[in-house]
């Protein structure tokens, strides 16, 4: 049925000249309400995370023991300015959530970017070149895939104590094979597509074809899926924190805040739950934006704009 519809597609209205596909994609995405909700929510959170700790007088790492375990508003016993209560050492939960958001996003996003770049370039290369390169890269991928993250984590984090870069390295290492696999399978499909052959005939080098033509086709769908992985990476970071291999104090991340607060969960639920909520909201916003962008991109490529 789609064939019929395509066959009968209304000729696209003349589009403003000068608008690149990316701009058009963003325009469409902006027009969608889910994208706007996601963007506003995410922007608000990130803005708060950047600005509030700068202007607020509350120090997220300053220990104020006298005001420990204050419940959040509006539970009985809450105190201004601790809207979301305080933690086991009397630090403001809101402020720690916001600062934690910064670090967690830093870790989550950097990790995903890292594994995206490593995984996709290896996968693309393997899929595009085929033959020996493919065989070697894919066996390596399988091997990496079958080593549980946790074992990788203790070995690497055992060598260099858990710093943010080391954690990113560990998470990235354990995550790239999936991307390599996906990128490879897509590249394999693209390898014999007309436009690739076309470029070859024109005399383009493999590298040019891969970077300029295959990558823009292959990568965006994977990139949108990668948004989901930001969440996973943030959670893995917290599992490391839970095992004592997380980011070292006093730096708060969602991971170590939730992990530390786990034992207070029965008494002071808010310490672990608030960062969890922040995480949930920010990730849902990211997801909304991601899926809206994906749809916008499809719309652009289908010519509905």
């Amino acid at each position, binding site marked *: *049925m789609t*064939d*019929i*519809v395509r*066959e*009968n*597609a*209304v*000729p*696209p209205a*003349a*589009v403003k*000249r*000068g*608008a*690149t*596909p990316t701009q058009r994609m963003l325009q469409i995405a902006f027009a969608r309400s889910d994208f706007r909700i996601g963007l506003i929510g995410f922007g608000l959170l990130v803005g708060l995370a950047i600005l509030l700790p700068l202007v607020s007088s509350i120090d997220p790492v300053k220990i104020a023991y006298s005001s420990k375990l204050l419940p959040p508003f509006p539970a009985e016993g809450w105190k201004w300015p601790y809207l979301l209560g305080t933690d086991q050492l009397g630090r403001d939960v809101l402020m720690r959530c916001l600062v934690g958001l910064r670090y967690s996003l830093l870790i989550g996003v950097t990790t995903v970017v890292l594994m995206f770049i490593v995984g996709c370039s290896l996968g693309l290369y393997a899929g595009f070149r085929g033959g020996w390169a493919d065989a070697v890269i894919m066996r390596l991928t399988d091997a990496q895939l079958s080593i549980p993250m946790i074992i990788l984590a203790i070995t690497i984090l055992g060598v260099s104590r858990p710093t943010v870069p080391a954690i990113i390295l560990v998470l990235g290492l354990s995550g790239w094979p999936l991307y390599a696999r996906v990128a490879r399978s897509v590249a394999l499909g693209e390898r014999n*597509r*007309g*436009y690739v*052959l*076309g*470029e*070859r*005939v*024109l*005399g*383009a*080098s493999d590298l*040019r074809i891969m970077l300029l*033509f295959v990558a*823009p*086709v292959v990568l965006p769908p994977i990139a949108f899926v990668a948004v989901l992985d930001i969440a996973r990476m943030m959670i893995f970071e917290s599992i490391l924190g839970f095992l004592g291999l997380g980011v070292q104090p006093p730096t708060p991340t969602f991971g170590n805040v939730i992990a530390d607060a786990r034992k207070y969960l029965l008494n002071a639920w808010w310490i672990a739950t608030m960062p969890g909520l922040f995480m949930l909201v920010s990730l849902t916003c990211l997801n909304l934006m991601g899926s809206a962008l994906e749809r916008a991109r499809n719309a*652009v*490529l*289908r*010519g*509905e704009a």
Partner: protein
Amino acid sequence: MSGPILAVSNLGVELQRAGKTRRVVDDVGFALAPGEVLGLVGEAGSGKSVLARALVRAISSPLEIVSGKVVFEGKDILSADRRELMAIRGNRIGFIGANPMGSLDPRLSIGSQIVEKLRSVKPGIGRAEAREKVLELFGRVRIPSPDARFHEAPFQFSGGMMQRVMIVDALVSDPSLVIADNITQPLDVTVAAQIIRLIDDLRQSLGTAFLFISSSLPVVAQIAERTLVMQRGRIVEEGRTEDIAANPGQAYTRTLISRIPPIWNNVSAPVATEAEAVLKIDNVTRTYRVRRRNTFNGFNAVKAIRGVSFTVKARENFGIVGESGCGKSTLTRLLAWLEQPDSGCIAFLGKDLSQLSSRSLTEFRKSFQLLLQDPYGSLPANMPVQRMIEEPLLIHGVGKAEAARLAQEAMAEVGLSMEFAERLPVGLSAGQRQRINIARALVLKPQLLILDETLSALDQVEQAELLDLFTRLQATHGFSYVFISHDLALVRRMCHRIAVMYLGRIVELADNATLFEHPHHPYTRALLSAMPTLEDNRFPRSRYLLDGEPPSPIELPSGCSFRSRCPRAQGDCQRIDPPLLVIDGGNAAACLHMHEALTEKETADVE
């Protein structure tokens, strides 16, 4: 003759998109008598496929049936309830689509799926009975060894065999009407001709009415008694097929007919001239190693190209024709130097390409360019048009500004409006896309263009326009063309010399007039006989059409590879693999008995 089996009146379908409404099917009305074959002709986009689906109410958003009646066997389909609809669709009305390979679940055996369909439209039939019925029909549509093939999945069938399967699927419930929507479109000419002959046989023995839809009037003319002509959603002409072909009443029908390229009547075939050679192919072979299924480390040698030699001269149009699997696409890749031959030599302008360094090869590539078949897949979807045309120049190190200037010149030359410069290829028609491809090749100032089925995705009008463009470009730039095509009419119009390929080998190489008027190889004749045409075919099907399908390139018959289907085959054909034997005028054919049977009846009427 009783009343009509199907009576359509005032049928209207609308397409809604982006707030706009367009009538895709408009006020259509016609009637179909029992056992009749009614043709429906229209160009791509005329709304015939939508009409076909509207008849069985298989229309979904963004399309909507807005008016009319479809009375089938006395019942209005459009107002029938679910249960009544279920009793008609797939049961009383069968449907065959244009994509046989995608029409069944790829995972399951075809037999079980047809049985499933039969039992779901006729719940009373038992499993064994249904199976019997399906097997019987398999035999009737001449699927070889039906018992074994019953258990095979769609991917194990060729397109032609799969279309036969779909015919069984449509006929299995003994429908009184079958809607055949463009069923020969994806098939090779000989296979399509076989299918049409098959349908003609079946409907005579079964008495089933057919609504036979096609974009080609010659195809319809082979089978339909009456024909409807559709244009932009409306029926513009209706009448007996012969009358329409001979005396079209409407202007639109006349243009349709005028666009059908002549093959024998009033043809001015291009005449070969002498010139220096541009491209020289000498005894080229290419064999692929394909992993053998069901073995640990076994490989099959697929002989895709077997000792092909020819020469393309300057300013010459050289045609290569053949059906699926004949090695055309491999040859294309070899000619475009995307792959290297296993043996033999491809020389361009006197230089053996395999001897060139990769630098000079890149430089050399500018002079021979390939235009690909698929106008949709061959353009990167995310690049604006002008940038795409600049691309080849950028690859070869031309500056940005210079590239933009040359690209704009090329766009003008191929007739692309500058409005498209910043647009994505999406929404452009196939013709416009191919113009982009031509422009991309053009900016490199090549000497040879290889056209791999370049025009096959285009409708007649666009094809004609592009052919004019090719001629014009050849006049200005002095190109040579290699047309690789399955379309004999196109080759007839454009090419000076033509090679016919069968199973990786050239079976006949001749100038245009010889090939079409006095072909020497039986396969060439079979191809010509299968051509749908409104003219009287010089090679009537009853005499020349082949049966069956080509053997697998993995297990070629010994001796002459055509002998398994050849009506002239004799004992020595089994032993001797004939080379291209030179006849007169530089023509050649690969047949041991080419002079013997020129006048005899040539059909292997095994059935």
